[in-house]
């Protein structure tokens, strides 16, 4: 317990952590401020015009929707090829008056994208703080000093990781609540809340939850990489090298050698699948089953969030396990 208290104190007192919290707050503040400045409460006239435009749009879409359903039912090749997929994409129910309101923040339509932004920033925060927290301790001699007091390497490293994850989670929960609450408030006073129903809240809740879990995994990965490399920059180097060598270079090479599904080999696909619930990707080549009566060949495939969880969690467990195993027997300077 004493060690936990000491580590909480150490984490909170780190200037880098304080600076990152400040930057995080600034980024969120700027986002909220620009949204606030760019939105206004629509007048009755604006709402009326938007509703009229939406009604007109619905009438057009209704015809396409009916054609799509008919093509699905009869298998008419010409129509089926035109719509290429799910008829719900052209459902009139998807047309909303808020689509025709410019300069108005609509909570239920825009908050999901803003949530992805929130998660991305929290991930960056977690990775940098996680890497720096242990990296600085290893290079500054803080770890050596601590081990002279508590010569239990696994306990010390585990406490550091636990404290870090708890701290990042706590901050992320508070930041998420403030962030989402601010946009909800903006929607109430200078925009529109839309029509958030139960499925919307469930979807948002799951997205935030998965996002927070991603933040914890990324934080642990930063911590593990810096522990393995004995330095903060090791984690940054690994991240940069992965992005450049694999996500960019590897993708190009795989394109040249005609790998059918390069996206399936990219970590970013699993990150998006995990946070968004699923990701639809298109194979570069491969066999497909043309839809009956049409020449359309659908090479798309999906990665769902459970696959994302397995890959990300597996990577995290591997990295953290490797870091602990290495640290257990490492000679410390």
């Amino acid at each position, binding site marked *: 317990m*004493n*060690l936990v*208290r*000491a*580590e909480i*104190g*150490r984490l909170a*007192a*780190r*200037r880098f952590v304080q600076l990152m919290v400040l930057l995080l707050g600034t980024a969120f503040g700027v986002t909220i401020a620009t949204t606030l400045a760019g939105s206004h409460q629509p007048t009755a006239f604006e709402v009326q015009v938007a509703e009229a435009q939406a009604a007109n749009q619905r009438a057009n879409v209704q015809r396409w929707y009916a054609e799509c359903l008919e093509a699905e039912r009869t298998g008419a090749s010409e129509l089926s090829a035109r719509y290429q997929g799910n008829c719900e994409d052209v459902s009139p129910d998807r047309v909303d008056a808020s689509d025709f309101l410019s300069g108005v923040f609509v909570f239920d339509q825009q908050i999901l994208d803003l949530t992805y932004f929130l998660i991305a920033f929290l991930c960056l925060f977690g990775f940098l703080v996680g890497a720096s927290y242990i990296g*600085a*301790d290893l290079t*500054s*001699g*803080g770890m*050596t*000093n*601590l*081990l*002279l*007091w*508590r*010569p*239990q390497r696994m306990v010390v490293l585990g406490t550091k990781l636990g404290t870090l994850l708890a701290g990042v989670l706590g901050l992320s929960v508070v930041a998420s609540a403030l962030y989402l609450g601010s946009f909800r408030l903006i929607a109430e006073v200078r925009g529109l809340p839309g029509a958030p129903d139960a499925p919307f809240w469930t979807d948002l809740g799951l997205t935030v939850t998965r996002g927070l879990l991603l933040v914890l995994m990324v934080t642990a990965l930063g911590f593990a990489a810096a522990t393995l490399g004995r330095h903060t920059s090791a984690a940054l180097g690994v991240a940069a090298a992965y992005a450049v060598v694999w996500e960019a270079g590897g993708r190009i090479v795989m394109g040249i050698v005609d790998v059918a599904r390069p996206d399936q080999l990219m970590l970013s696909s699993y990150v998006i699948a995990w946070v968004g619930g699923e990701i639809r990707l298109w194979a570069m080549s491969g066999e497909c089953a043309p839809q009956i009566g049409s020449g359309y060949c659908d090479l798309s495939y999906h990665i769902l969030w459970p696959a994302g969880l397995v890959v990300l969690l597996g990577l995290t467990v591997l990295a953290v396990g490797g870091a602990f195993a290495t640290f257990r*027997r490492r*000679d*410390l300077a």
Partner: protein
Amino acid sequence: MPAVIQIDGLRKTFTGVRRGRRVALDGFDMLVEPGQVHGFLGPNGSGKTTTLRTLLGLVQADSGRMALFGEPAPQRLPAVVGRLGAIVESPQFFGNFSGRRTLRLLAVAGGVPPARVDEVLEQVGLRDRADERVKGYSLGMKQRLAVASALLKRPELLILDEPANGLDPAGIREMRDLMRGLAAAGVTVLVSSHILAEIQQICDHVTIISRGRRVAAGPVDAVLAGFDHREFRIRVADQTRAAEIIASAGLPVTTHADHLVVADLDDPARLSQALGEQGVWLRELTPLTPDLESVFLELTDTRPRPGVPRQVDDSVRPDRPADESQITLGADDGLQITVSADDERAQP
């Protein structure tokens, strides 16, 4: 009562892609009894810090046995760590924390009452600078902070690696007084230092290491006595004549520019009489007692040679005890000196 520190046959080899394989400890032994102020000496790179790091669990030994307060280390280190305070090599602290915060965090981690922080800050003379960031501290101030951290736990054993590093003369004296005070209070102190005069002043026992092996160990007086050749420096008007007289008396004599050194002289009166009978009168007769520095330089063979730059690893490498070349002098006093049969020099 068990020994405070017992090390037997400690071996450690560092391997690196660029540096290759380097033997840091090669069967090193050490014994520190309760209440001793024990000096730990050795040339640069001889294995002092590696020994201390290994003892404290920071470096993994290849083989050998270690015990602290009778408990095997590093396995039982957590059980005894509350009884020891240590600083190892250059003090390293997080630069953006103040001295007080640094100590408070350690105190919290170790379950030490916060009030103790102010006590040790006062004790090491950092009271008025405690709230400044450590990165603004001088080396000497960092050293004081390191000592303060080691004292926080009111240790029964204090391990200090180069505690005088960076200290000003007053600081060195304060450090000496501090160690004396701790020793008087019953604290066992193991101190490694290159300031041999300091060691000689404050330590009652000493262990000397060279190239990973022990070359001498025991009470300081006994170690010095082992190198007392009963030498005297004499000055006379006719140096050549005096040398002939002394040699004819069967005493080894060495001629220097302005004096003679006579060895194996049990009774100075005998020399005075022999010279006087031949009409040579002494102007000076001074006993040459060995000091720790000369003994250290002799044992480790690191005495500077004019015009020959000495490399870091140029020190004597004693043969292993298994080679039966270990000579034990004054065993009753617990003194052990291991000397090389062939004065083997370090090989790259």
